[in-house]
């Protein structure tokens, strides 16, 4: 273990894994993005920036993604936080286990099936019909941006709940008593003690949800009726329908770059906010 060679040798499997699973596919995307589309689709080697210059043609898709991804993340956070707080601090052990199981169980089924269920819940025979019975008529939910937002919150909620729950659950509850003893009202305790200590969980949850949302295509396709168009949907169409692999690669590369920039800015802000005392791990 002393020599540098042994170290390097031990790193080899991990390095190889990264190379094959991460670097090579990304490299293919970058190389393709400078190529040219063959007349019937496919790849002709070339070096041109045409695909990148053409990116404004998917501006709306990028715009929609950059609006809905943060919005979905924020909405999921606002709903997940009280739930996680209740689970970690208020609930009795028995209720906690039951609720945790209820959050986990849906994960055993594919998101595709669960989203299909939402098609019926939001469709004409679902919630709108219930609303009609109580006198509110003409509500349309399915195939609107609202339906997509509901689907996203539903699908990503567990990813937000768990990191926050873990960070709230592990902190020393005596801090809350101490705060109370020292005369802080509940709201002040929450603001000055609970919230700062749960920031690592919030940060992790937000990052998980945000990153996955940026590439989401299934929920907008199914609940948006093909009318709500994300970068993910643009990519599916470019690769599977118009077979424009080179342009698709450029769009994918642009998405990766946008993510790198937004996520690093975000990390920096969070690190500063958390006073760098807690490590911001992904798990």
């Amino acid at each position, binding site marked *: 273990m002393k020599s540098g060679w042994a170290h390097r040798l031990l790193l080899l499997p991990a390095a190889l894994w990264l190379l094959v699973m991460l670097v090579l596919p990304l490299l293919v995307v970058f190389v393709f993005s400078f190529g040219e589309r063959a007349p019937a689709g496919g790849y002709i080697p070339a070096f041109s920036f045409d695909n990148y210059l053409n990116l404004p043609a998917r501006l709306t898709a990028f715009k929609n993604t950059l609006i809905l991804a943060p919005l979905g993340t924020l909405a999921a956070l606002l709903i997940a936080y009280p739930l996680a707080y209740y689970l970690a601090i208020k609930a009795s052990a028995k209720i906690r286990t039951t609720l945790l199981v209820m959050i986990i169980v849906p994960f055993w089924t594919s998101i595709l099936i669960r989203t299909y269920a939402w098609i019926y819940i939001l469709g004409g025979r679902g919630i709108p019909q219930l609303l009609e019975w109580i006198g509110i008529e003409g509500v349309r939910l399915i195939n609107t941006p609202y339906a997509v937002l509901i689907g996203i919150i539903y699908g990503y909620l567990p990813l937000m709940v768990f990191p926050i729950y873990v960070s709230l659950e592990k902190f020393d509850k005596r801090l809350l008593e101490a705060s109370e003893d020292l005369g802080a009202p509940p709201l002040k305790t929450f603001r000055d003690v609970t919230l700062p200590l749960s920031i690592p969980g919030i940060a992790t949850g937000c990052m998980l949800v945000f990153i996955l949302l940026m590439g989401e295509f299934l929920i907008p396709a199914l609940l948006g009726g093909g009318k709500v168009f994300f970068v993910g949907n643009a990519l599916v169409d470019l690769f599977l*329908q*118009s077979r424009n692999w080179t342009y698709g690669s450029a769009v994918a590369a642009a998405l990766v770059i946008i993510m790198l920039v937004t996520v690093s800015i975000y990390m920096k802000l969070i690190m500063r906010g958390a006073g760098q005392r807690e490590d911001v791990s992904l798990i």
Partner: protein
Amino acid sequence: MKDDNKPITRKQFIKQLRRYEKGSISRRQFLGVTGLGMATTVMAAAVPSLLPRKAWAAPNIGDRVVLATWPNYHDPANFEAFTQATGAHVQVNVFGSNEEMLAKLQAGGSGWDVFVPTNYTITTYVGEDLIEPLDLSQLPNFKASAFEPRFSDAGTVNGKVYAVPKNWGTTGFVVNNKHNKGKRMTSWKDFWDRTKTDYSGRTMVHDYQLTTIGNALKYFGYSFNSVDPKELADAEKLLLEVKPHLFAINSDYQPPLRNGDAWMSMCWTGDGKQLNTDIPTMEYVLGVEGGEIWSDYYAVPRGAEHREAGYALINFLLDPAINAREVMAHGYPVADSRTNALLPKALLEDPILYPARELLDALEFGAAATLTDPNRAELLARFKSA
């Protein structure tokens, strides 16, 4: 194309099961009607130990054949019969669009032995060297003279037969007349105009540039296949105008039409027939301006792994008696006069399957250039993201 995966309802299933128990239908019919035959086919592929042991019919063509095709486009009982006769088990891959099929073959390693391309894709497959000229000596059931040329000639490229006809059909629209206030629709002009008025929020168009743009072009009386920039610009203007009034852009249109969320949709023959059978107020309309007529084919990809079994399967399905059973199951017409001679008169006179001559004459076959035109692909992307 032809997107429908409507499973049998529980009630119907029990009814069929009782009929089977009483002996009023055969096991084959039972499996076919309930979809169990297909389910078994799919499951068996995932569990190799369930596969039939060994071919007992000479010559040995191996134990399996992989078929890429469209949804609800075969009679599962026929696949069973094929396995019984040859020992080769049929593994079915279902696809949603010609583009997806082409993308998969271009990417390589599709693993298919037979697939079902539509007329306008065949020259592209030949140009890309993705399919092989058929060895007709292995297809004794293919008799070129029995087929109507306009539904079989796209299979021949540069004098060589690359594909043999499966079924043909049309692309029109289906409309639920329950909501039409006594004014029937007969044209693409009606389709688009009324989407903006009394069918607003209730209309669906395909997530498929060929048909959605093609039928928008018909509004102006242009060719379904136009790639002229000015004409495409007109179509784009119409599509963008109509978009806020659309229920969805999706080729899976049967479920919302059935549950009442959507009232009208672009539609292919077989779906029109199925919807009309179950909901009589659903009318299948071919626009008077024209639109699309298409023909599907069987082809063999280059380097097919179970090539011999692939040929055996095509030959088997082209047997007129087998083919007639196929038509009875999926409701798409065939161009083979030998098969038509075996079909019931009621089916041959069905106006959805066999539209009136003047409506048919106005239709156009899709062109290869239409499918691969990059401008049309970009137009659809703009339409979807608007």
